[in-house]
């Protein structure tokens, strides 16, 4: 019946494999097999976004995603954003806007905002609020998160203009 299975996937650009049990979620596997801490389980019910990772370019809740289904997929986590010491512009914007307190929700928000800005490079307030309603921050850094999104969007637009 329940037996281990080897899955292969691309993790932050690197091909990797892991032998896992069918019940393991993607957060379980990222934490326990790859020592990645960015995606973390909080609500465990898809509601808070602390466990956000991208699977084939789309954000999903790692807590509800059975790792088996990552077989053959491209998985990107917050750990893949920075290039060496250079943070991603979204990460920088979060720091500049002071968009977090305890930081537990932050990687999830950052990963969501990455995708938000891909889909809406210059989002309206309304778009941001709806896109990020599924991310909870109990420290309630929400106003600063709105600022961070605007900042990152402006930077991105500026960079695009220069390029």
């Amino acid at each position, binding site marked *: 019946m329940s037996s281990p299975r080897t899955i292969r996937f691309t993790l932050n650009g690197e091909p990797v494999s892991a032998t896992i049990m069918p019940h393991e979620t993607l957060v379980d596997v990222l934490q326990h097999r790859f020592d990645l801490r960015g995606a973390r389980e909080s609500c465990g019910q898809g509601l808070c*976004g602390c466990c956000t990772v991208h699977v084939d370019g*789309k954000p999903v809740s790692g807590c509800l995603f059975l790792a088996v289904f990552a077989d053959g997929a491209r998985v990107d986590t917050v750990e893949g954003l920075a290039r060496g010491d250079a943070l991603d512009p979204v990460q920088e914007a979060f720091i500049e806007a002071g968009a977090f307190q305890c930081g537990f929700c932050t990687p999830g928000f950052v990963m969501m905002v990455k995708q938000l800005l891909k889909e809406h490079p210059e989002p309206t307030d309304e778009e941001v609020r709806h896109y990020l309603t599924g991310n909870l921050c109990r420290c309630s850094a929400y106003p600063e998160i709105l600022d961070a999104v605007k900042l990152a969007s402006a930077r991105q637009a500026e960079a695009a203009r220069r390029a």
Partner: protein
Amino acid sequence: MTGFEIVEPESLEEAFRLLDPEDPAVRPIGGGTALMLMMKAQIYKPERLVSLRRLDGRFSGIDIAADGSGFRIGAMTTFSMLEHSPAIRRHLPVIAQTMKTLANVRVRNVASVGGNLAHADPHLDLPPVWVALGARAVVVGPRGERTIPVEAIFEGYYETSLANDELIAELEVPVRAGWDALYVKVTTRAAHDWPALGLAVSAELEGRRIRDLRLVLSAAVDKPTRLAAAEAVLRGAEIGPATLRAAGEAAVAETEIESDSRGSAAYKQHLLRVHLGRAIEALAAKRV
């Protein structure tokens, strides 16, 4: 949440072999969002999950008929595919409108059209919309295939008419010229929440006269329910305060709404009256 296997058949025949008509511990899995919640809560303890993700052909894709008369939507289509499909946005804008407040981006990226219907939670937002649109589901099983109106899937609270080894393969959704639709999600505990009541309306209007319509209530009742009596009041009628009030009363009279954590029966009945009227007015306003 341990002690189960996951199988990923690549053909329908294989899938039917792996499913089990009798054993409730064997189930298909689509996006898995609903199943995972039940498994984590230990409400559901599977022994085998049959993934539908490798089933090709009819289980995936969104196609519009050559004459534009309707859509075929594969059961494994995710909500975000629907939400972002230009054809759907153009011909069935109510779907994109419903998606905006349905769960969240991450859930929409994995939840499937078929899993959503088979889950039969009366609080789901999309089923009443499909019913209002007159959508039909193509159900396949080892004993053959049948096409049924979406409302015929639901038998009650988390209960469906599907056999344990039957699968929803696709949806057929008509696009009816001259019709317009709207979904109202009424939440009472917080802005972003499961609905206290969901109200889907599709109608064919001629100015302020209602030629024909379908009214569907969900969340406050145990399955998406056509409001036949309210429809009868409105069908052929001119939109006005008295008619809307009469329709609201008819809707309340024909449904059994019970108190729950989202509101007392009396309050939800009142909300039904108010929002039914407002929904019709909103549709009329869109038309003019």
